[in-house]
Protein backbone atom coordinates (compact mmCIF):
# COMPACT_ATOMS: atom_id res chain seq x y z
CA UNK A 1 0.00 0.00 0.00
CA UNK A 2 1.47 3.30 -1.05
CA UNK A 3 1.49 5.89 1.75
CA UNK A 4 2.65 9.46 2.17
CA UNK A 5 4.12 8.93 5.64
CA UNK A 6 7.54 7.47 6.39
CA UNK A 7 6.72 7.13 10.10
CA UNK A 8 3.65 5.73 11.81
CA UNK A 9 1.03 4.90 9.21
CA UNK A 10 -1.60 7.09 10.85
CA UNK A 11 0.26 10.00 12.51
CA UNK A 12 3.75 9.90 10.95
CA UNK A 13 5.43 9.79 14.37
CA UNK A 14 8.73 7.95 14.47
CA UNK A 15 8.54 7.21 18.21
CA UNK A 16 7.68 3.68 19.31
CA UNK A 17 8.32 0.36 17.72
CA UNK A 18 5.16 -1.51 16.77
CA UNK A 19 5.12 -3.60 13.59
CA UNK A 20 1.83 -5.06 12.43
CA UNK A 21 0.69 -6.81 9.30
CA UNK A 22 -2.11 -4.84 7.68
CA UNK A 23 -3.68 -6.05 4.44
CA UNK A 24 -0.74 -8.37 3.86
CA UNK A 25 1.93 -5.75 4.47
CA UNK A 26 4.14 -5.24 7.52
CA UNK A 27 3.72 -1.65 8.67
CA UNK A 28 5.29 0.56 11.32
CA UNK A 29 3.20 2.22 14.04
CA UNK A 30 4.24 4.35 17.01
CA UNK A 31 1.79 2.66 19.40
CA UNK A 32 -1.06 0.16 19.63
CA UNK A 33 -3.65 2.94 19.56
CA UNK A 34 -2.52 3.95 16.09
CA UNK A 35 -2.81 0.33 14.92
CA UNK A 36 -6.45 0.32 16.02
CA UNK A 37 -7.00 3.65 14.27
CA UNK A 38 -5.43 2.57 10.98
CA UNK A 39 -7.18 -0.78 10.83
CA UNK A 40 -10.50 0.88 11.66
CA UNK A 41 -9.98 3.55 9.04
CA UNK A 42 -9.23 1.04 6.27
CA UNK A 43 -12.19 -1.09 7.28
CA UNK A 44 -14.49 1.93 7.21
CA UNK A 45 -13.26 3.10 3.81
CA UNK A 46 -13.70 -0.40 2.39
CA UNK A 47 -17.23 -0.58 3.83
CA UNK A 48 -18.06 2.80 2.38
CA UNK A 49 -16.67 2.14 -1.09
CA UNK A 50 -17.02 -1.64 -1.25
CA UNK A 51 -13.43 -1.78 -2.44
CA UNK A 52 -11.74 -5.11 -1.82
CA UNK A 53 -8.37 -3.54 -1.23
CA UNK A 54 -6.79 -0.12 -0.89
CA UNK A 55 -3.76 0.57 -3.07
CA UNK A 56 -2.76 3.93 -1.67
CA UNK A 57 -3.66 6.30 1.11
CA UNK A 58 -2.47 9.83 1.78
CA UNK A 59 -3.32 11.21 5.22
CA UNK A 60 -3.28 14.85 6.35
CA UNK A 61 -4.30 16.72 9.49
CA UNK A 62 -3.79 16.05 13.16
CA UNK A 63 -5.54 14.57 16.18
CA UNK A 64 -8.22 17.29 16.02
CA UNK A 65 -9.32 15.94 12.68
CA UNK A 66 -7.76 14.22 9.73
CA UNK A 67 -8.54 13.76 6.08
CA UNK A 68 -7.26 11.31 3.53
CA UNK A 69 -7.31 10.48 -0.14
CA UNK A 70 -7.52 6.76 -0.81
CA UNK A 71 -7.31 4.90 -4.10
CA UNK A 72 -8.10 1.42 -5.32
CA UNK A 73 -7.33 0.64 -8.94
CA UNK A 74 -8.62 3.63 -10.83
CA UNK A 75 -11.10 4.49 -8.11
CA UNK A 76 -10.41 7.28 -5.66
CA UNK A 77 -12.17 8.81 -2.68
CA UNK A 78 -11.60 11.55 -0.13
CA UNK A 79 -12.64 11.18 3.49
CA UNK A 80 -12.64 13.13 6.75
CA UNK A 81 -12.41 11.35 10.07
CA UNK A 82 -11.53 11.59 13.76
CA UNK A 83 -10.98 9.03 16.50
CA UNK A 84 -11.98 8.69 20.14
CA UNK A 85 -9.35 8.19 22.84
CA UNK A 86 -9.46 4.41 22.36
CA UNK A 87 -8.61 4.79 18.68
CA UNK A 88 -12.10 3.95 17.45
CA UNK A 89 -13.68 6.05 14.74
CA UNK A 90 -15.64 8.94 16.21
CA UNK A 91 -16.49 10.76 12.97
CA UNK A 92 -16.25 9.63 9.37
CA UNK A 93 -17.62 11.07 6.18
CA UNK A 94 -16.88 10.81 2.51
CA UNK A 95 -16.04 14.22 1.14
CA UNK A 96 -16.64 13.25 -2.46
CA UNK A 97 -17.77 10.01 -4.03
CA UNK A 98 -15.21 7.56 -5.41
CA UNK A 99 -14.49 7.95 -9.08
CA UNK A 100 -14.84 4.22 -9.74
CA UNK A 101 -18.20 2.41 -9.65
CA UNK A 102 -18.80 1.06 -6.14
CA UNK A 103 -17.83 -2.54 -5.59
CA UNK A 104 -15.68 -2.89 -8.69
CA UNK A 105 -12.10 -2.58 -7.59
CA UNK A 106 -9.91 -1.36 -10.37
CA UNK A 107 -12.82 -0.89 -12.77
CA UNK A 108 -12.36 1.58 -15.55
CA UNK A 109 -14.63 4.62 -15.39
CA UNK A 110 -17.63 4.01 -17.57
Amino acid at each position, binding site marked *: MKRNYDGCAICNSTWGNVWEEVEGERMFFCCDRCVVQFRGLLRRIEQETRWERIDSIEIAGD*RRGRSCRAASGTGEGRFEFAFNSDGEILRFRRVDPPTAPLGRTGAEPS
Partner: protein
Amino acid sequence: MGFGRRDYPALAHHLVDRADDSDSDHVRWLNQNLTRRKTEAELLVSPLEEMFALGRESIATWIKARFIAKFYGSSPHPFVVALQHPSRATLLGYVIEHQHFLRQWVRSCAYIMARTDRPEVVHYELDNLTTEFGGLGPDRVSHYELLLRMGESLGVDRARVLGTPPLPATYRAIEQWNEMATREHWVAVLAAMHGLELIANRNLVDEGASVHYFDPAILDGTEIPAAAQAFLREGYEADVEHSDEALALVVRYASELDVVEDVQSVFLRSIDLFDDYLIARLERAGQFEA
Protein backbone atom coordinates in the same frame (compact mmCIF):
# COMPACT_ATOMS: atom_id res chain seq x y z
CA MET B 1 6.58 8.93 38.24
CA GLY B 2 8.40 11.53 40.33
CA PHE B 3 11.60 13.31 39.37
CA GLY B 4 13.99 15.52 41.26
CA ARG B 5 13.50 19.23 40.96
CA ARG B 6 14.55 20.49 37.54
CA ASP B 7 15.87 17.04 36.71
CA TYR B 8 14.90 17.35 33.06
CA PRO B 9 17.57 14.88 31.89
CA ALA B 10 15.88 12.15 33.98
CA LEU B 11 12.47 13.16 32.66
CA ALA B 12 13.76 13.10 29.08
CA HIS B 13 15.25 9.63 29.53
CA HIS B 14 12.02 8.39 31.10
CA LEU B 15 9.97 9.70 28.16
CA VAL B 16 12.30 8.15 25.60
CA ASP B 17 12.42 4.82 27.45
CA ARG B 18 8.63 4.61 27.64
CA ALA B 19 8.30 5.63 23.99
CA ASP B 20 10.78 2.91 23.05
CA ASP B 21 8.33 0.52 24.71
CA SER B 22 5.61 2.01 22.44
CA ASP B 23 3.59 3.14 25.45
CA SER B 24 0.66 4.98 23.87
CA ASP B 25 0.28 7.66 26.53
CA HIS B 26 3.96 8.62 26.50
CA VAL B 27 4.16 8.53 22.71
CA ARG B 28 1.07 10.72 22.54
CA TRP B 29 2.54 13.18 25.04
CA LEU B 30 5.76 13.44 23.05
CA ASN B 31 3.87 13.79 19.78
CA GLN B 32 1.63 16.52 21.10
CA ASN B 33 4.02 18.46 23.28
CA LEU B 34 7.56 18.11 21.91
CA THR B 35 8.08 16.38 18.59
CA ARG B 36 6.80 13.52 16.47
CA ARG B 37 10.32 12.65 15.35
CA LYS B 38 12.25 10.17 17.47
CA THR B 39 15.01 12.09 19.21
CA GLU B 40 17.86 11.35 21.57
CA ALA B 41 16.94 12.03 25.20
CA GLU B 42 19.74 14.60 25.49
CA LEU B 43 18.10 16.69 22.77
CA LEU B 44 14.80 16.77 24.64
CA VAL B 45 16.26 18.36 27.76
CA SER B 46 16.31 21.90 26.44
CA PRO B 47 12.75 21.79 24.99
CA LEU B 48 11.52 20.41 28.32
CA GLU B 49 13.25 23.20 30.22
CA GLU B 50 11.63 25.73 27.92
CA MET B 51 8.25 24.11 28.29
CA PHE B 52 8.30 24.30 32.08
CA ALA B 53 10.06 27.66 32.39
CA LEU B 54 7.91 30.40 33.91
CA GLY B 55 10.26 33.22 33.00
CA ARG B 56 8.87 36.42 34.46
CA GLU B 57 5.32 35.12 34.33
CA SER B 58 3.34 33.61 37.18
CA ILE B 59 2.27 29.99 37.32
CA ALA B 60 -1.27 31.23 36.59
CA THR B 61 -0.15 32.71 33.28
CA TRP B 62 1.68 29.48 32.43
CA ILE B 63 -1.45 27.43 33.21
CA LYS B 64 -3.65 29.67 31.08
CA ALA B 65 -1.20 29.56 28.19
CA ARG B 66 -1.09 25.74 28.24
CA PHE B 67 -4.85 25.54 28.50
CA ILE B 68 -5.41 27.92 25.60
CA ALA B 69 -2.86 26.08 23.44
CA LYS B 70 -4.60 22.77 24.06
CA PHE B 71 -8.25 23.73 23.80
CA TYR B 72 -8.49 27.17 22.21
CA GLY B 73 -5.70 27.35 19.65
CA SER B 74 -6.10 27.80 15.92
CA SER B 75 -7.84 24.43 15.83
CA PRO B 76 -10.11 24.46 18.92
CA HIS B 77 -11.17 21.27 20.63
CA PRO B 78 -13.93 19.53 18.62
CA PHE B 79 -16.35 19.72 21.54
CA VAL B 80 -15.86 23.48 21.73
CA VAL B 81 -16.52 23.68 17.99
CA ALA B 82 -19.71 21.64 18.42
CA LEU B 83 -20.85 23.78 21.36
CA GLN B 84 -20.68 27.06 19.45
CA HIS B 85 -24.19 26.36 18.16
CA PRO B 86 -25.01 23.03 19.79
CA SER B 87 -27.40 20.43 18.48
CA ARG B 88 -29.73 18.56 20.82
CA ALA B 89 -27.36 15.59 20.55
CA THR B 90 -24.34 17.67 21.62
CA LEU B 91 -26.16 19.01 24.66
CA LEU B 92 -27.34 15.54 25.65
CA GLY B 93 -23.82 14.18 25.29
CA TYR B 94 -22.81 16.98 27.64
CA VAL B 95 -25.55 16.13 30.16
CA ILE B 96 -24.95 12.40 30.35
CA GLU B 97 -21.16 12.43 30.66
CA HIS B 98 -20.95 15.60 32.75
CA GLN B 99 -23.09 14.37 35.60
CA HIS B 100 -20.38 11.76 36.21
CA PHE B 101 -17.73 14.46 36.01
CA LEU B 102 -19.52 16.63 38.58
CA ARG B 103 -19.86 13.78 41.02
CA GLN B 104 -16.11 13.25 40.84
CA TRP B 105 -15.69 17.00 41.14
CA VAL B 106 -17.20 16.85 44.63
CA ARG B 107 -14.78 14.12 45.66
CA SER B 108 -11.74 15.96 44.27
CA CYS B 109 -12.67 19.21 46.00
CA ALA B 110 -13.36 17.34 49.23
CA TYR B 111 -9.85 15.88 49.10
CA ILE B 112 -8.42 19.38 48.71
CA MET B 113 -10.36 20.51 51.78
CA ALA B 114 -9.31 17.48 53.75
CA ARG B 115 -5.65 17.93 52.98
CA THR B 116 -5.16 21.69 53.16
CA ASP B 117 -4.48 23.56 56.38
CA ARG B 118 -5.41 26.94 54.87
CA PRO B 119 -8.86 28.26 55.87
CA GLU B 120 -9.16 30.45 52.77
CA VAL B 121 -8.79 27.36 50.60
CA VAL B 122 -11.51 25.59 52.59
CA HIS B 123 -13.78 28.63 52.18
CA TYR B 124 -13.09 28.70 48.46
CA GLU B 125 -13.94 25.02 48.08
CA LEU B 126 -17.09 25.30 50.19
CA ASP B 127 -18.32 28.15 48.01
CA ASN B 128 -17.42 26.25 44.84
CA LEU B 129 -19.14 23.06 45.98
CA THR B 130 -22.24 24.99 46.96
CA THR B 131 -22.44 26.57 43.52
CA GLU B 132 -21.60 23.41 41.62
CA PHE B 133 -23.36 20.74 43.63
CA GLY B 134 -25.15 21.82 46.80
CA GLY B 135 -27.15 24.83 45.66
CA LEU B 136 -28.63 27.61 47.76
CA GLY B 137 -32.27 26.63 47.81
CA PRO B 138 -34.96 26.73 45.13
CA ASP B 139 -34.04 30.22 43.92
CA ARG B 140 -30.39 29.37 43.31
CA VAL B 141 -30.13 25.72 42.43
CA SER B 142 -26.76 24.05 41.80
CA HIS B 143 -25.03 23.70 38.48
CA TYR B 144 -25.62 19.96 38.81
CA GLU B 145 -29.38 20.54 39.09
CA LEU B 146 -29.29 22.92 36.12
CA LEU B 147 -27.51 20.21 34.13
CA LEU B 148 -30.25 17.68 34.89
CA ARG B 149 -32.92 20.22 33.99
CA MET B 150 -31.17 20.83 30.69
CA GLY B 151 -31.44 17.10 29.99
CA GLU B 152 -35.14 17.13 30.85
CA SER B 153 -35.74 20.11 28.57
CA LEU B 154 -34.25 18.03 25.75
CA GLY B 155 -36.52 15.09 26.44
CA VAL B 156 -34.30 12.87 28.59
CA ASP B 157 -35.48 12.48 32.17
CA ARG B 158 -33.10 12.48 35.10
CA ALA B 159 -33.66 8.82 35.92
CA ARG B 160 -32.24 7.90 32.53
CA VAL B 161 -29.36 10.37 32.88
CA LEU B 162 -28.45 9.13 36.35
CA GLY B 163 -28.83 5.51 35.32
CA THR B 164 -26.50 5.70 32.32
CA PRO B 165 -22.95 4.54 33.07
CA PRO B 166 -20.09 6.74 31.82
CA LEU B 167 -18.34 5.95 28.57
CA PRO B 168 -14.94 4.28 29.02
CA ALA B 169 -12.98 7.51 28.44
CA THR B 170 -15.05 9.35 31.06
CA TYR B 171 -14.66 6.45 33.48
CA ARG B 172 -10.88 6.37 33.01
CA ALA B 173 -10.60 10.13 33.44
CA ILE B 174 -12.66 10.07 36.62
CA GLU B 175 -10.60 7.24 38.05
CA GLN B 176 -7.39 9.11 37.35
CA TRP B 177 -8.68 12.41 38.72
CA ASN B 178 -9.69 10.55 41.86
CA GLU B 179 -6.28 8.96 42.20
CA MET B 180 -4.66 12.32 41.54
CA ALA B 181 -6.71 13.89 44.33
CA THR B 182 -5.64 11.23 46.81
CA ARG B 183 -1.95 11.18 45.93
CA GLU B 184 -0.82 14.59 44.74
CA HIS B 185 -0.14 17.73 46.72
CA TRP B 186 -3.36 19.64 47.42
CA VAL B 187 -2.05 22.74 45.62
CA ALA B 188 -1.44 20.63 42.50
CA VAL B 189 -4.94 19.17 42.76
CA LEU B 190 -6.35 22.68 43.17
CA ALA B 191 -4.66 23.67 39.91
CA ALA B 192 -5.53 20.41 38.16
CA MET B 193 -9.25 20.61 38.91
CA HIS B 194 -10.08 24.31 39.04
CA GLY B 195 -7.80 25.01 36.10
CA LEU B 196 -10.36 23.04 34.09
CA GLU B 197 -12.93 25.76 34.83
CA LEU B 198 -10.93 27.88 32.40
CA ILE B 199 -12.92 26.09 29.70
CA ALA B 200 -15.87 28.43 30.36
CA ASN B 201 -13.81 31.49 31.31
CA ARG B 202 -15.04 34.10 28.84
CA ASN B 203 -12.01 36.31 29.47
CA LEU B 204 -9.67 33.80 27.80
CA VAL B 205 -10.35 35.40 24.43
CA ASP B 206 -8.55 38.48 25.74
CA GLU B 207 -5.55 36.27 26.44
CA GLY B 208 -5.36 34.56 23.07
CA ALA B 209 -8.20 32.01 22.92
CA SER B 210 -9.53 31.75 19.37
CA VAL B 211 -13.18 31.40 20.42
CA HIS B 212 -15.46 31.37 23.46
CA TYR B 213 -16.69 28.09 24.94
CA PHE B 214 -19.89 28.73 22.99
CA ASP B 215 -21.24 31.59 20.96
CA PRO B 216 -22.71 33.91 23.63
CA ALA B 217 -25.57 34.69 21.25
CA ILE B 218 -27.14 31.30 22.08
CA LEU B 219 -27.87 32.60 25.58
CA ASP B 220 -30.60 34.71 24.00
CA GLY B 221 -33.29 33.74 21.53
CA THR B 222 -34.72 30.28 20.96
CA GLU B 223 -31.84 28.35 19.38
CA ILE B 224 -31.54 26.20 22.52
CA PRO B 225 -34.10 25.59 25.31
CA ALA B 226 -34.33 28.01 28.23
CA ALA B 227 -33.04 25.31 30.60
CA ALA B 228 -29.93 24.86 28.43
CA GLN B 229 -29.42 28.63 28.44
CA ALA B 230 -29.71 28.62 32.23
CA PHE B 231 -27.08 25.89 32.56
CA LEU B 232 -24.62 27.50 30.15
CA ARG B 233 -25.19 30.98 31.56
CA GLU B 234 -24.34 29.78 35.06
CA GLY B 235 -20.92 28.55 33.96
CA TYR B 236 -20.41 31.61 31.78
CA GLU B 237 -20.98 33.86 34.77
CA ALA B 238 -19.39 31.79 37.53
CA ASP B 239 -16.32 30.24 35.98
CA VAL B 240 -14.37 33.46 35.47
CA GLU B 241 -14.39 33.98 39.21
CA HIS B 242 -13.98 30.27 40.03
CA SER B 243 -10.94 29.77 37.85
CA ASP B 244 -9.28 33.13 38.56
CA GLU B 245 -9.73 32.82 42.30
CA ALA B 246 -8.35 29.27 42.28
CA LEU B 247 -5.36 30.32 40.20
CA ALA B 248 -4.64 33.16 42.63
CA LEU B 249 -4.52 30.57 45.43
CA VAL B 250 -2.27 28.37 43.29
CA VAL B 251 0.11 31.28 42.64
CA ARG B 252 0.35 31.99 46.34
CA TYR B 253 0.69 28.48 47.69
CA ALA B 254 2.72 26.85 44.92
CA SER B 255 5.43 29.35 45.64
CA GLU B 256 5.06 29.39 49.42
CA LEU B 257 5.05 25.58 49.66
CA ASP B 258 7.61 25.18 46.88
CA VAL B 259 5.54 22.86 44.68
CA VAL B 260 5.56 24.74 41.37
CA GLU B 261 6.81 21.81 39.29
CA ASP B 262 4.33 19.43 40.92
CA VAL B 263 1.57 21.83 39.97
CA GLN B 264 2.79 21.98 36.39
CA SER B 265 3.10 18.23 35.85
CA VAL B 266 -0.22 17.40 37.52
CA PHE B 267 -2.00 20.15 35.59
CA LEU B 268 -0.64 18.79 32.30
CA ARG B 269 -1.94 15.32 33.17
CA SER B 270 -5.31 16.76 34.09
CA ILE B 271 -5.79 18.63 30.79
CA ASP B 272 -4.90 15.47 28.86
CA LEU B 273 -7.66 13.66 30.76
CA PHE B 274 -10.02 16.57 30.12
CA ASP B 275 -9.26 16.42 26.40
CA ASP B 276 -10.31 12.76 26.29
CA TYR B 277 -13.33 13.45 28.47
CA LEU B 278 -14.57 16.18 26.14
CA ILE B 279 -14.24 13.75 23.24
CA ALA B 280 -16.38 11.32 25.25
CA ARG B 281 -19.13 13.95 25.35
CA LEU B 282 -19.06 13.99 21.55
CA GLU B 283 -19.04 10.21 21.44
CA ARG B 284 -22.14 10.16 23.63
CA ALA B 285 -23.70 12.84 21.46
CA GLY B 286 -23.31 10.48 18.52
CA GLN B 287 -25.81 8.14 20.18
CA PHE B 288 -28.47 10.86 19.95
CA GLU B 289 -27.85 11.85 16.38
CA ALA B 290 -30.60 10.94 13.94
